[in-house]
Protein backbone atom coordinates (compact mmCIF):
# COMPACT_ATOMS: atom_id res chain seq x y z
CA UNK A 1 0.00 0.00 0.00
CA UNK A 2 1.30 3.43 -0.91
CA UNK A 3 2.42 5.24 2.22
CA UNK A 4 0.37 8.21 3.26
CA UNK A 5 1.86 11.66 3.66
CA UNK A 6 1.54 11.32 7.40
CA UNK A 7 3.46 8.07 7.36
CA UNK A 8 6.19 9.61 5.24
CA UNK A 9 6.46 12.54 7.62
CA UNK A 10 6.87 10.08 10.43
CA UNK A 11 9.61 8.36 8.48
CA UNK A 12 11.44 11.64 8.18
CA UNK A 13 11.26 12.19 11.93
CA UNK A 14 12.13 8.54 12.51
CA UNK A 15 15.36 9.06 10.62
CA UNK A 16 16.19 11.89 12.97
CA UNK A 17 15.28 9.88 16.04
CA UNK A 18 12.78 12.59 16.87
CA UNK A 19 9.73 10.42 17.39
CA UNK A 20 8.42 9.74 20.87
CA UNK A 21 8.81 6.07 21.83
CA UNK A 22 5.21 5.01 21.15
CA UNK A 23 5.27 6.49 17.64
CA UNK A 24 8.68 5.08 17.00
CA UNK A 25 7.51 1.62 17.95
CA UNK A 26 4.51 2.00 15.68
CA UNK A 27 6.68 3.01 12.73
CA UNK A 28 9.05 0.12 13.30
CA UNK A 29 6.16 -2.27 13.51
CA UNK A 30 4.81 -0.99 10.22
CA UNK A 31 8.22 -1.12 8.58
CA UNK A 32 8.56 -4.76 9.50
CA UNK A 33 5.55 -5.71 7.42
CA UNK A 34 5.49 -3.06 4.66
CA UNK A 35 8.14 -3.43 1.98
CA UNK A 36 7.07 -0.27 0.18
CA UNK A 37 7.46 1.72 3.34
CA UNK A 38 10.93 0.26 3.82
CA UNK A 39 11.76 1.31 0.27
CA UNK A 40 10.61 4.84 1.01
CA UNK A 41 12.69 4.92 4.16
CA UNK A 42 15.74 3.76 2.29
CA UNK A 43 15.23 6.31 -0.44
CA UNK A 44 14.74 9.07 2.09
CA UNK A 45 17.81 7.94 3.99
CA UNK A 46 19.97 8.11 0.88
CA UNK A 47 18.73 11.58 0.12
CA UNK A 48 19.44 12.78 3.63
CA UNK A 49 22.84 11.14 3.60
CA UNK A 50 23.76 12.94 0.40
CA UNK A 51 22.86 16.27 1.99
CA UNK A 52 24.67 15.49 5.20
CA UNK A 53 27.69 14.51 3.18
CA UNK A 54 28.19 18.04 1.99
CA UNK A 55 31.63 19.26 3.02
CA UNK A 56 31.99 21.73 5.82
CA UNK A 57 32.80 25.16 4.57
CA UNK A 58 35.23 27.60 6.03
CA UNK A 59 34.41 31.23 6.46
CA UNK A 60 36.68 33.77 4.82
CA UNK A 61 39.57 34.34 7.16
CA UNK A 62 39.12 38.08 6.97
CA UNK A 63 35.67 38.17 8.56
CA UNK A 64 36.83 38.62 12.14
CA UNK A 65 39.05 41.53 11.21
CA UNK A 66 36.38 43.12 9.07
CA UNK A 67 33.82 42.86 11.83
CA UNK A 68 36.08 44.37 14.46
CA UNK A 69 37.10 47.13 12.09
CA UNK A 70 33.50 47.99 11.37
CA UNK A 71 32.70 48.01 15.05
CA UNK A 72 35.70 50.15 15.79
CA UNK A 73 34.66 52.58 13.12
CA UNK A 74 31.29 52.92 14.73
CA UNK A 75 32.94 53.44 18.07
CA UNK A 76 30.82 50.74 19.50
CA UNK A 77 33.58 49.50 21.65
CA UNK A 78 32.82 52.34 23.98
CA UNK A 79 29.70 53.25 25.83
CA UNK A 80 27.08 54.86 23.66
CA UNK A 81 26.11 57.49 26.16
CA UNK A 82 29.70 58.35 26.74
CA UNK A 83 30.19 58.61 23.04
CA UNK A 84 27.32 61.01 22.66
CA UNK A 85 28.51 62.92 25.65
CA UNK A 86 31.91 63.10 24.07
CA UNK A 87 30.42 64.53 20.92
CA UNK A 88 28.71 67.24 22.90
CA UNK A 89 31.91 67.99 24.78
CA UNK A 90 33.80 68.28 21.53
CA UNK A 91 31.16 70.58 20.11
CA UNK A 92 31.19 72.74 23.24
CA UNK A 93 34.97 72.89 23.10
CA UNK A 94 34.77 73.96 19.50
CA UNK A 95 32.31 76.69 20.40
CA UNK A 96 34.54 77.94 23.20
CA UNK A 97 37.56 78.02 20.94
CA UNK A 98 35.55 79.72 18.25
CA UNK A 99 34.33 82.33 20.73
CA UNK A 100 37.84 82.99 22.00
CA UNK A 101 39.13 83.28 18.44
CA UNK A 102 36.31 85.67 17.57
CA UNK A 103 37.14 87.84 20.58
CA UNK A 104 40.78 87.91 19.64
CA UNK A 105 40.01 88.87 16.06
CA UNK A 106 37.61 91.56 17.21
CA UNK A 107 40.02 92.90 19.77
CA UNK A 108 42.86 92.86 17.27
CA UNK A 109 40.79 94.66 14.67
CA UNK A 110 39.50 97.34 17.00
CA UNK A 111 42.87 97.61 18.65
CA UNK A 112 44.47 98.18 15.30
CA UNK A 113 41.93 100.88 14.63
CA UNK A 114 42.55 102.37 18.04
CA UNK A 115 46.29 102.29 17.44
CA UNK A 116 45.81 103.66 13.93
CA UNK A 117 43.68 106.57 15.11
CA UNK A 118 46.01 107.12 18.02
CA UNK A 119 48.66 108.16 15.57
CA UNK A 120 46.61 111.32 14.90
CA UNK A 121 45.34 110.35 11.49
CA UNK A 122 41.78 111.09 10.53
CA UNK A 123 39.15 108.46 10.10
CA UNK A 124 36.44 109.79 7.86
CA UNK A 125 32.90 108.67 8.47
CA UNK A 126 34.16 105.33 9.61
CA UNK A 127 34.24 104.11 6.05
CA UNK A 128 37.98 104.16 5.94
CA UNK A 129 38.10 101.87 8.90
CA UNK A 130 38.73 98.27 7.99
CA UNK A 131 36.18 97.34 10.61
CA UNK A 132 33.42 99.76 9.76
CA UNK A 133 31.95 97.91 6.87
CA UNK A 134 32.52 94.50 8.25
CA UNK A 135 29.55 92.57 9.50
CA UNK A 136 29.47 92.42 13.20
CA UNK A 137 31.56 95.49 13.61
CA UNK A 138 28.97 96.97 15.85
CA UNK A 139 29.46 100.28 17.41
CA UNK A 140 30.75 99.75 20.92
CA UNK A 141 28.07 100.49 23.44
CA UNK A 142 28.38 103.73 25.36
CA UNK A 143 30.69 105.26 22.86
CA UNK A 144 29.80 108.83 21.97
CA UNK A 145 28.48 108.97 18.46
CA UNK A 146 30.84 111.73 17.49
CA UNK A 147 33.82 109.58 18.14
CA UNK A 148 32.74 107.16 15.46
CA UNK A 149 32.20 109.95 13.02
CA UNK A 150 35.88 110.52 12.91
CA UNK A 151 38.21 113.21 13.96
CA UNK A 152 41.33 113.24 16.00
CA UNK A 153 40.83 111.13 19.11
CA UNK A 154 41.77 112.50 22.42
CA UNK A 155 43.27 110.55 25.31
CA UNK A 156 40.02 110.54 27.35
CA UNK A 157 38.18 109.17 24.36
CA UNK A 158 40.78 106.48 23.97
CA UNK A 159 40.17 105.47 27.59
CA UNK A 160 36.42 105.41 26.98
CA UNK A 161 36.88 103.26 23.93
CA UNK A 162 39.13 100.92 25.82
CA UNK A 163 36.46 100.49 28.52
CA UNK A 164 33.84 99.70 25.93
CA UNK A 165 36.18 97.17 24.38
CA UNK A 166 36.52 95.54 27.78
CA UNK A 167 32.77 95.19 27.91
CA UNK A 168 32.74 93.68 24.42
CA UNK A 169 35.39 91.23 25.43
CA UNK A 170 33.39 90.27 28.49
CA UNK A 171 30.28 89.41 26.53
CA UNK A 172 31.65 86.42 24.67
CA UNK A 173 33.19 85.23 27.88
CA UNK A 174 29.73 85.17 29.39
CA UNK A 175 28.58 83.17 26.44
CA UNK A 176 31.34 80.78 27.18
CA UNK A 177 30.12 80.36 30.69
CA UNK A 178 26.65 79.81 29.37
CA UNK A 179 27.89 77.03 27.16
CA UNK A 180 29.54 75.49 30.13
CA UNK A 181 26.35 75.71 32.13
CA UNK A 182 24.37 74.10 29.35
CA UNK A 183 26.95 71.41 29.15
CA UNK A 184 26.61 70.70 32.85
CA UNK A 185 22.89 70.56 32.51
CA UNK A 186 23.09 68.23 29.57
CA UNK A 187 25.26 65.80 31.43
CA UNK A 188 23.42 65.96 34.69
CA UNK A 189 20.55 63.79 35.72
CA UNK A 190 18.15 66.63 35.16
CA UNK A 191 18.28 66.62 31.45
CA UNK A 192 16.31 69.55 30.13
CA UNK A 193 13.48 68.54 27.84
CA UNK A 194 14.89 70.60 25.05
CA UNK A 195 18.19 68.89 25.27
CA UNK A 196 16.64 65.48 25.25
CA UNK A 197 14.49 66.36 22.31
CA UNK A 198 17.44 67.65 20.35
CA UNK A 199 19.34 64.50 20.95
CA UNK A 200 16.39 62.37 20.00
CA UNK A 201 15.67 64.22 16.85
CA UNK A 202 19.22 64.11 15.79
CA UNK A 203 19.34 60.39 16.24
CA UNK A 204 16.05 59.84 14.54
CA UNK A 205 17.03 62.00 11.63
CA UNK A 206 20.23 60.13 11.30
CA UNK A 207 18.40 56.89 10.97
CA UNK A 208 15.50 57.85 8.83
CA UNK A 209 16.64 57.24 5.35
CA UNK A 210 18.06 54.40 3.46
CA UNK A 211 18.40 53.96 -0.24
CA UNK A 212 19.46 51.02 -2.23
CA UNK A 213 19.07 49.92 -5.82
CA UNK A 214 15.52 49.02 -6.59
CA UNK A 215 14.30 49.95 -3.21
CA UNK A 216 14.02 53.11 -1.36
CA UNK A 217 12.50 53.83 1.93
CA UNK A 218 11.93 56.88 3.92
CA UNK A 219 11.08 56.45 7.51
CA UNK A 220 10.42 58.80 10.33
CA UNK A 221 10.74 57.80 13.87
CA UNK A 222 10.18 59.28 17.23
CA UNK A 223 10.69 58.30 20.75
CA UNK A 224 8.14 56.62 22.95
CA UNK A 225 5.40 58.85 24.09
CA UNK A 226 2.51 58.49 26.36
CA UNK A 227 -0.24 59.62 24.07
CA UNK A 228 -3.13 57.39 23.21
CA UNK A 229 -4.07 56.14 19.84
CA UNK A 230 -7.47 54.87 19.02
CA UNK A 231 -7.74 52.70 15.98
CA UNK A 232 -11.39 52.65 15.19
CA UNK A 233 -12.68 50.60 12.35
CA UNK A 234 -15.96 51.38 10.73
CA UNK A 235 -18.01 48.56 9.28
CA UNK A 236 -16.65 47.16 6.09
CA UNK A 237 -18.02 48.87 3.06
CA UNK A 238 -17.86 46.35 0.34
CA UNK A 239 -19.39 48.51 -2.35
CA UNK A 240 -16.78 51.19 -2.12
CA UNK A 241 -13.48 49.92 -0.99
CA UNK A 242 -11.96 53.27 -0.41
CA UNK A 243 -14.93 55.32 0.66
CA UNK A 244 -14.71 56.83 4.04
CA UNK A 245 -11.31 55.49 4.64
CA UNK A 246 -9.16 57.86 6.45
CA UNK A 247 -6.68 57.60 9.18
CA UNK A 248 -5.81 60.76 10.92
CA UNK A 249 -3.27 61.26 13.55
CA UNK A 250 -3.69 64.86 14.60
CA UNK A 251 -0.51 64.94 16.52
CA UNK A 252 2.13 67.54 17.12
CA UNK A 253 4.88 67.80 14.56
CA UNK A 254 7.78 65.50 14.89
CA UNK A 255 10.03 67.92 16.59
CA UNK A 256 7.48 68.67 19.24
CA UNK A 257 6.34 65.11 19.54
CA UNK A 258 9.81 64.06 20.44
CA UNK A 259 9.30 65.82 23.71
CA UNK A 260 7.86 63.36 26.13
CA UNK A 261 4.76 64.93 27.50
CA UNK A 262 1.58 63.66 28.99
CA UNK A 263 -0.26 66.86 28.34
CA UNK A 264 -0.36 66.57 24.61
CA UNK A 265 -3.67 65.89 22.93
CA UNK A 266 -4.43 62.31 22.16
CA UNK A 267 -3.82 61.04 18.75
CA UNK A 268 -6.56 59.12 17.11
CA UNK A 269 -6.44 56.94 14.10
CA UNK A 270 -9.39 55.89 12.06
CA UNK A 271 -8.54 52.87 10.07
CA UNK A 272 -11.22 51.75 7.75
CA UNK A 273 -12.45 49.47 5.08
CA UNK A 274 -10.39 46.37 5.24
CA UNK A 275 -9.25 45.80 8.73
CA UNK A 276 -7.75 42.68 10.10
CA UNK A 277 -6.98 41.91 13.67
CA UNK A 278 -4.69 38.98 13.93
CA UNK A 279 -4.47 37.45 17.32
CA UNK A 280 -1.73 34.91 17.45
CA UNK A 281 -2.08 32.10 15.02
CA UNK A 282 -5.82 32.06 15.13
CA UNK A 283 -6.24 34.96 12.80
CA UNK A 284 -9.10 36.76 14.41
CA UNK A 285 -10.52 38.80 11.61
CA UNK A 286 -13.02 41.34 12.68
CA UNK A 287 -13.31 45.05 12.53
CA UNK A 288 -12.36 46.50 15.83
CA UNK A 289 -11.73 49.53 17.88
CA UNK A 290 -8.78 49.81 20.07
CA UNK A 291 -7.24 52.44 22.22
CA UNK A 292 -3.67 51.89 23.06
CA UNK A 293 -0.79 53.89 24.40
CA UNK A 294 1.74 54.33 21.68
CA UNK A 295 5.24 53.13 22.09
CA UNK A 296 6.47 54.43 18.81
CA UNK A 297 5.06 55.48 15.52
CA UNK A 298 6.84 55.29 12.27
CA UNK A 299 5.89 55.58 8.69
CA UNK A 300 7.69 54.74 5.54
CA UNK A 301 7.10 55.08 1.87
CA UNK A 302 8.19 51.87 0.27
CA UNK A 303 8.91 52.02 -3.39
CA UNK A 304 7.87 48.84 -5.10
CA UNK A 305 10.86 47.30 -6.68
CA UNK A 306 11.70 43.68 -6.87
CA UNK A 307 11.74 43.07 -3.19
CA UNK A 308 11.74 45.17 -0.12
CA UNK A 309 12.09 44.17 3.44
CA UNK A 310 10.49 45.87 6.34
CA UNK A 311 13.64 45.15 8.21
CA UNK A 312 14.97 48.15 6.39
CA UNK A 313 11.89 50.10 7.27
CA UNK A 314 11.99 49.12 10.87
CA UNK A 315 15.64 49.81 11.18
CA UNK A 316 14.78 53.32 10.17
CA UNK A 317 12.21 53.37 12.90
CA UNK A 318 14.16 51.72 15.64
CA UNK A 319 17.81 52.11 14.87
CA UNK A 320 19.79 54.18 17.28
CA UNK A 321 16.85 54.86 19.51
CA UNK A 322 17.34 53.97 23.09
CA UNK A 323 15.32 50.91 23.83
CA UNK A 324 13.19 50.79 26.92
CA UNK A 325 13.79 47.96 29.29
CA UNK A 326 11.10 45.77 27.87
CA UNK A 327 12.68 46.03 24.45
CA UNK A 328 15.92 44.66 25.73
CA UNK A 329 15.55 41.25 24.22
CA UNK A 330 14.19 42.43 20.95
CA UNK A 331 15.63 41.21 17.77
CA UNK A 332 18.48 43.43 16.81
CA UNK A 333 17.07 44.13 13.42
CA UNK A 334 13.33 43.99 13.70
CA UNK A 335 10.53 41.70 14.56
CA UNK A 336 8.70 42.03 11.33
CA UNK A 337 9.35 41.13 7.79
CA UNK A 338 7.46 42.76 5.05
CA UNK A 339 8.02 42.19 1.44
CA UNK A 340 6.44 44.20 -1.26
CA UNK A 341 6.94 43.22 -4.81
CA UNK A 342 5.23 43.65 -8.08
CA UNK A 343 6.90 40.88 -9.93
CA UNK A 344 4.92 37.98 -11.20
CA UNK A 345 1.73 37.69 -13.16
CA UNK A 346 -0.34 36.84 -10.12
CA UNK A 347 0.63 39.99 -8.35
CA UNK A 348 -0.12 42.07 -11.40
CA UNK A 349 -3.77 41.46 -10.70
CA UNK A 350 -3.72 41.84 -6.97
CA UNK A 351 -1.06 44.45 -6.55
CA UNK A 352 1.97 44.05 -4.40
CA UNK A 353 1.65 41.39 -1.83
CA UNK A 354 2.37 42.55 1.63
CA UNK A 355 3.57 39.75 3.74
CA UNK A 356 4.10 40.18 7.40
CA UNK A 357 5.94 37.49 9.14
CA UNK A 358 6.31 37.45 12.84
CA UNK A 359 9.47 36.64 14.57
CA UNK A 360 10.02 36.25 18.22
CA UNK A 361 9.19 39.42 19.88
CA UNK A 362 8.93 40.33 23.46
CA UNK A 363 8.69 43.81 22.15
CA UNK A 364 5.22 44.84 21.58
CA UNK A 365 2.27 44.63 19.41
CA UNK A 366 2.20 46.31 16.12
CA UNK A 367 -0.48 48.09 14.31
CA UNK A 368 0.50 48.09 10.73
CA UNK A 369 -1.30 50.15 8.21
CA UNK A 370 -0.56 49.77 4.57
CA UNK A 371 -1.90 52.54 2.52
CA UNK A 372 -1.35 54.53 -0.56
CA UNK A 373 -1.27 58.27 -0.73
CA UNK A 374 0.11 59.78 2.37
CA UNK A 375 -1.75 62.91 3.18
CA UNK A 376 0.42 64.16 5.89
CA UNK A 377 -0.03 67.27 7.83
CA UNK A 378 2.65 67.30 10.38
CA UNK A 379 2.17 63.85 11.82
CA UNK A 380 -1.35 63.49 10.59
CA UNK A 381 -1.57 60.44 8.44
CA UNK A 382 -4.21 59.48 5.99
CA UNK A 383 -3.86 55.88 5.17
CA UNK A 384 -6.45 54.40 2.90
CA UNK A 385 -5.87 50.79 2.26
CA UNK A 386 -5.58 47.81 4.45
CA UNK A 387 -4.82 47.70 8.09
CA UNK A 388 -3.41 44.81 9.96
CA UNK A 389 -3.35 44.75 13.70
CA UNK A 390 -1.04 42.17 15.07
CA UNK A 391 -1.31 41.13 18.64
CA UNK A 392 2.22 40.35 19.45
CA UNK A 393 3.93 38.84 22.40
CA UNK A 394 3.90 35.10 22.86
CA UNK A 395 1.22 34.47 20.29
CA UNK A 396 3.10 36.35 17.70
CA UNK A 397 6.27 34.44 18.14
CA UNK A 398 4.77 31.49 16.37
CA UNK A 399 4.83 33.61 13.32
CA UNK A 400 1.46 34.15 11.78
CA UNK A 401 2.01 35.00 8.21
CA UNK A 402 -0.39 37.48 6.83
CA UNK A 403 -0.72 38.27 3.21
CA UNK A 404 -2.93 41.08 2.14
CA UNK A 405 -3.57 42.53 -1.21
CA UNK A 406 -2.45 46.06 -1.48
CA UNK A 407 -3.72 46.88 -4.92
CA UNK A 408 -5.84 49.70 -3.65
CA UNK A 409 -2.98 50.97 -1.59
CA UNK A 410 -0.61 51.61 -4.43
CA UNK A 411 0.24 55.14 -5.24
CA UNK A 412 1.40 55.36 -8.85
CA UNK A 413 4.46 57.46 -9.38
CA UNK A 414 4.97 59.20 -12.71
CA UNK A 415 8.70 58.85 -12.52
CA UNK A 416 9.12 55.31 -11.40
CA UNK A 417 7.78 52.40 -9.46
CA UNK A 418 4.65 52.93 -7.43
CA UNK A 419 4.91 53.37 -3.72
CA UNK A 420 3.10 52.07 -0.72
CA UNK A 421 2.71 53.85 2.54
CA UNK A 422 3.41 51.72 5.56
CA UNK A 423 2.67 52.87 9.04
CA UNK A 424 3.89 50.96 12.00
CA UNK A 425 2.55 51.76 15.41
CA UNK A 426 4.26 49.96 18.21
CA UNK A 427 2.21 49.29 21.28
CA UNK A 428 3.90 48.44 24.54
CA UNK A 429 3.49 44.88 25.73
CA UNK A 430 1.96 45.84 29.01
CA UNK A 431 -0.89 47.62 27.33
CA UNK A 432 -4.32 46.13 27.40
CA UNK A 433 -4.89 43.41 24.89
CA UNK A 434 -6.25 44.60 21.62
CA UNK A 435 -9.71 43.24 21.34
CA UNK A 436 -12.18 43.75 18.58
CA UNK A 437 -15.32 45.46 19.65
CA UNK A 438 -18.37 46.55 17.76
CA UNK A 439 -17.54 49.72 15.97
CA UNK A 440 -20.46 51.87 16.88
CA UNK A 441 -18.32 54.89 17.29
CA UNK A 442 -15.32 55.60 15.24
CA UNK A 443 -13.26 58.03 17.10
CA UNK A 444 -13.28 59.49 20.53
Amino acid sequence: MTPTSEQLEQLSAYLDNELPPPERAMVESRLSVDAMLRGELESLRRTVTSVRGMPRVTAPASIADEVTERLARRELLGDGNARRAGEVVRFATFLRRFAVAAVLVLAAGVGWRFWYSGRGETVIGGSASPMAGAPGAAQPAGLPESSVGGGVRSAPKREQLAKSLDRDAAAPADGNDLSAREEKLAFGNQLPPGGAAFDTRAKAMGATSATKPGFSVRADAMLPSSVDVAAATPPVQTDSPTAGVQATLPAPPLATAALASTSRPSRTAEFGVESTVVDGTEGLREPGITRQPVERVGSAVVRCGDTASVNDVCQGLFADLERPEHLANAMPQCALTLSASQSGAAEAATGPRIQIRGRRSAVARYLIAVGGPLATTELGLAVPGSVVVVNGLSEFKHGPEISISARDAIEPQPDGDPTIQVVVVVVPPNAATISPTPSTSHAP
Partner: protein
Amino acid sequence: MNPASRAESVDEASLVARCREGDRAAFGDFVRAFQDRVFGVCLRISGDRNDAADATQETFVRALESIARFDERAAVFTWLYRIAVNLAIDQRRRRGRGGVVPLDGRRGRDNSAGSLGDRLAADGPGPDERLHATEREAAVAKAIVELDEEQRVVVVLRDIDGLDYAQIAEVLQLPVGTVKSRLFRGRMMLKEKLRAMVEAERA
Protein backbone atom coordinates in the same frame (compact mmCIF):
# COMPACT_ATOMS: atom_id res chain seq x y z
CA MET B 1 31.12 17.09 16.32
CA ASN B 2 27.53 18.02 16.83
CA PRO B 3 26.56 21.65 17.19
CA ALA B 4 25.86 21.48 20.86
CA SER B 5 29.24 20.11 21.74
CA ARG B 6 30.91 22.50 19.34
CA ALA B 7 29.15 25.35 21.00
CA GLU B 8 30.20 24.11 24.38
CA SER B 9 33.79 23.75 23.27
CA VAL B 10 34.14 27.49 23.59
CA ASP B 11 33.50 29.14 26.85
CA GLU B 12 30.51 31.07 25.64
CA ALA B 13 29.67 32.69 28.92
CA SER B 14 33.07 34.18 29.49
CA LEU B 15 33.37 35.16 25.86
CA VAL B 16 30.05 36.98 25.97
CA ALA B 17 31.01 38.58 29.27
CA ARG B 18 34.27 39.86 27.81
CA CYS B 19 32.45 41.21 24.79
CA ARG B 20 30.01 43.04 27.04
CA GLU B 21 32.95 44.70 28.71
CA GLY B 22 34.14 45.96 25.35
CA ASP B 23 37.17 43.72 25.15
CA ARG B 24 38.30 44.15 21.56
CA ALA B 25 40.20 40.88 21.54
CA ALA B 26 37.09 39.09 22.71
CA PHE B 27 35.19 40.45 19.74
CA GLY B 28 37.60 38.73 17.41
CA ASP B 29 37.50 35.53 19.44
CA PHE B 30 33.74 35.60 19.40
CA VAL B 31 33.63 35.89 15.63
CA ARG B 32 36.23 33.20 15.10
CA ALA B 33 34.40 30.83 17.44
CA PHE B 34 31.24 30.88 15.41
CA GLN B 35 32.11 32.18 11.96
CA ASP B 36 32.36 28.85 10.17
CA ARG B 37 29.00 27.66 11.37
CA VAL B 38 27.32 30.95 10.62
CA PHE B 39 28.96 31.16 7.24
CA GLY B 40 27.95 27.60 6.39
CA VAL B 41 24.32 28.29 7.18
CA CYS B 42 24.35 31.54 5.24
CA LEU B 43 26.01 29.90 2.25
CA ARG B 44 23.52 27.10 1.98
CA ILE B 45 20.59 29.45 2.37
CA SER B 46 21.77 32.19 0.06
CA GLY B 47 23.61 29.99 -2.42
CA ASP B 48 26.32 32.56 -3.01
CA ARG B 49 29.64 32.88 -1.27
CA ASN B 50 29.80 36.65 -1.51
CA ASP B 51 26.31 37.02 -0.13
CA ALA B 52 27.09 34.50 2.58
CA ALA B 53 30.26 36.35 3.55
CA ASP B 54 28.37 39.63 3.70
CA ALA B 55 25.56 38.09 5.73
CA THR B 56 28.05 36.50 8.10
CA GLN B 57 29.86 39.76 8.64
CA GLU B 58 26.62 41.63 9.18
CA THR B 59 25.42 38.97 11.59
CA PHE B 60 28.39 39.48 13.85
CA VAL B 61 28.27 43.24 13.62
CA ARG B 62 24.64 43.27 14.68
CA ALA B 63 25.17 40.67 17.34
CA LEU B 64 28.09 42.48 18.89
CA GLU B 65 26.33 45.80 18.65
CA SER B 66 23.53 44.45 20.75
CA ILE B 67 25.41 42.01 22.91
CA ALA B 68 24.61 44.06 25.97
CA ARG B 69 20.99 43.15 25.43
CA PHE B 70 21.65 39.47 24.84
CA ASP B 71 19.62 37.26 27.12
CA GLU B 72 22.23 35.11 28.75
CA ARG B 73 19.73 32.36 29.36
CA ALA B 74 19.56 31.74 25.63
CA ALA B 75 22.15 29.84 23.65
CA VAL B 76 24.54 32.05 21.77
CA PHE B 77 24.39 30.04 18.58
CA THR B 78 20.59 30.17 18.60
CA TRP B 79 20.74 33.93 18.80
CA LEU B 80 23.37 34.18 16.10
CA TYR B 81 21.59 31.77 13.81
CA ARG B 82 18.38 33.73 14.10
CA ILE B 83 20.13 36.84 12.90
CA ALA B 84 22.08 34.99 10.24
CA VAL B 85 19.09 33.15 8.82
CA ASN B 86 17.13 36.35 8.49
CA LEU B 87 19.98 38.13 6.78
CA ALA B 88 20.69 35.27 4.42
CA ILE B 89 17.03 35.06 3.49
CA ASP B 90 16.90 38.77 2.86
CA GLN B 91 19.91 38.57 0.62
CA ARG B 92 18.50 35.66 -1.26
CA ARG B 93 15.28 37.60 -1.80
CA ARG B 94 17.12 40.63 -3.04
CA ARG B 95 19.10 38.58 -5.45
CA GLY B 96 15.96 36.84 -6.66
CA ARG B 97 15.77 33.28 -7.70
CA GLY B 98 18.73 33.40 -9.98
CA GLY B 99 21.06 32.49 -7.18
CA VAL B 100 24.54 31.33 -7.82
CA VAL B 101 25.57 27.85 -6.97
CA PRO B 102 29.23 27.73 -6.06
CA LEU B 103 30.66 25.22 -8.46
CA ASP B 104 34.21 26.31 -8.18
CA GLY B 105 34.34 26.77 -4.46
CA ARG B 106 35.81 30.24 -4.67
CA ARG B 107 33.61 32.97 -5.91
CA GLY B 108 34.33 35.49 -3.29
CA ARG B 109 37.00 36.55 -0.89
CA ASP B 110 37.34 33.12 0.54
CA ASN B 111 40.75 31.79 -0.21
CA SER B 112 40.44 28.82 2.01
CA ALA B 113 38.18 26.62 -0.08
CA GLY B 114 40.17 26.67 -3.25
CA SER B 115 38.98 26.39 -6.83
CA LEU B 116 38.26 23.19 -8.61
CA GLY B 117 41.72 23.26 -10.08
CA ASP B 118 43.23 23.75 -6.66
CA ARG B 119 41.26 20.87 -5.31
CA LEU B 120 42.27 18.61 -8.16
CA ALA B 121 45.87 19.45 -7.57
CA ALA B 122 45.64 18.89 -3.85
CA ASP B 123 46.46 15.73 -2.05
CA GLY B 124 43.62 13.33 -1.45
CA PRO B 125 41.30 11.49 -3.78
CA GLY B 126 42.28 11.21 -7.37
CA PRO B 127 41.08 13.67 -10.00
CA ASP B 128 38.19 11.52 -11.20
CA GLU B 129 36.85 10.92 -7.72
CA ARG B 130 37.34 14.52 -6.78
CA LEU B 131 35.58 15.72 -9.88
CA HIS B 132 32.73 13.36 -9.22
CA ALA B 133 32.47 14.53 -5.63
CA THR B 134 32.50 18.15 -6.73
CA GLU B 135 29.77 17.56 -9.26
CA ARG B 136 27.76 15.74 -6.65
CA GLU B 137 28.22 18.55 -4.13
CA ALA B 138 27.18 21.08 -6.74
CA ALA B 139 24.05 19.10 -7.56
CA VAL B 140 23.08 18.85 -3.90
CA ALA B 141 23.83 22.51 -3.28
CA LYS B 142 21.71 23.46 -6.27
CA ALA B 143 18.85 21.27 -5.12
CA ILE B 144 18.95 22.83 -1.65
CA VAL B 145 19.03 26.35 -2.93
CA GLU B 146 16.05 25.67 -5.17
CA LEU B 147 13.89 24.60 -2.27
CA ASP B 148 11.21 26.89 -1.00
CA GLU B 149 12.60 29.29 1.54
CA GLU B 150 10.84 27.74 4.52
CA GLN B 151 11.92 24.24 3.64
CA ARG B 152 15.44 25.30 2.72
CA VAL B 153 16.11 26.92 6.04
CA VAL B 154 14.92 23.93 8.01
CA VAL B 155 16.83 21.47 5.84
CA VAL B 156 20.01 23.50 6.19
CA LEU B 157 19.72 23.79 9.95
CA ARG B 158 18.96 20.11 10.34
CA ASP B 159 20.92 18.26 7.68
CA ILE B 160 23.80 20.64 7.08
CA ASP B 161 24.34 22.05 10.53
CA GLY B 162 22.87 19.23 12.57
CA LEU B 163 20.57 21.09 14.91
CA ASP B 164 17.82 19.04 16.46
CA TYR B 165 14.16 19.90 16.06
CA ALA B 166 13.91 21.80 19.32
CA GLN B 167 16.93 23.93 18.47
CA ILE B 168 15.56 24.69 15.02
CA ALA B 169 12.24 25.63 16.58
CA GLU B 170 14.07 27.98 18.92
CA VAL B 171 16.05 29.60 16.12
CA LEU B 172 13.06 30.09 13.86
CA GLN B 173 10.53 30.66 16.61
CA LEU B 174 8.30 27.97 15.26
CA PRO B 175 6.49 25.09 16.89
CA VAL B 176 8.39 21.83 16.67
CA GLY B 177 5.54 20.35 14.66
CA THR B 178 6.01 22.98 12.00
CA VAL B 179 9.72 22.26 11.87
CA LYS B 180 8.98 18.60 11.45
CA SER B 181 6.53 19.09 8.60
CA ARG B 182 8.69 21.63 6.76
CA LEU B 183 11.67 19.35 7.03
CA PHE B 184 9.65 16.46 5.69
CA ARG B 185 8.40 18.47 2.72
CA GLY B 186 11.86 19.76 2.01
CA ARG B 187 13.32 16.29 2.07
CA MET B 188 10.66 14.98 -0.25
CA MET B 189 11.46 17.75 -2.69
CA LEU B 190 15.15 16.96 -2.45
CA LYS B 191 14.43 13.32 -3.03
CA GLU B 192 12.73 14.17 -6.29
CA LYS B 193 15.43 16.57 -7.40
CA LEU B 194 18.23 14.18 -6.56
CA ARG B 195 16.50 10.99 -7.60
CA ALA B 196 18.67 10.38 -10.65
CA MET B 197 21.87 11.01 -8.76
CA VAL B 198 20.90 8.88 -5.80
CA GLU B 199 19.77 5.99 -7.98
CA ALA B 200 22.96 6.17 -10.02
CA GLU B 201 25.03 5.99 -6.88
CA ARG B 202 22.95 3.11 -5.64
CA ALA B 203 23.51 1.24 -8.90
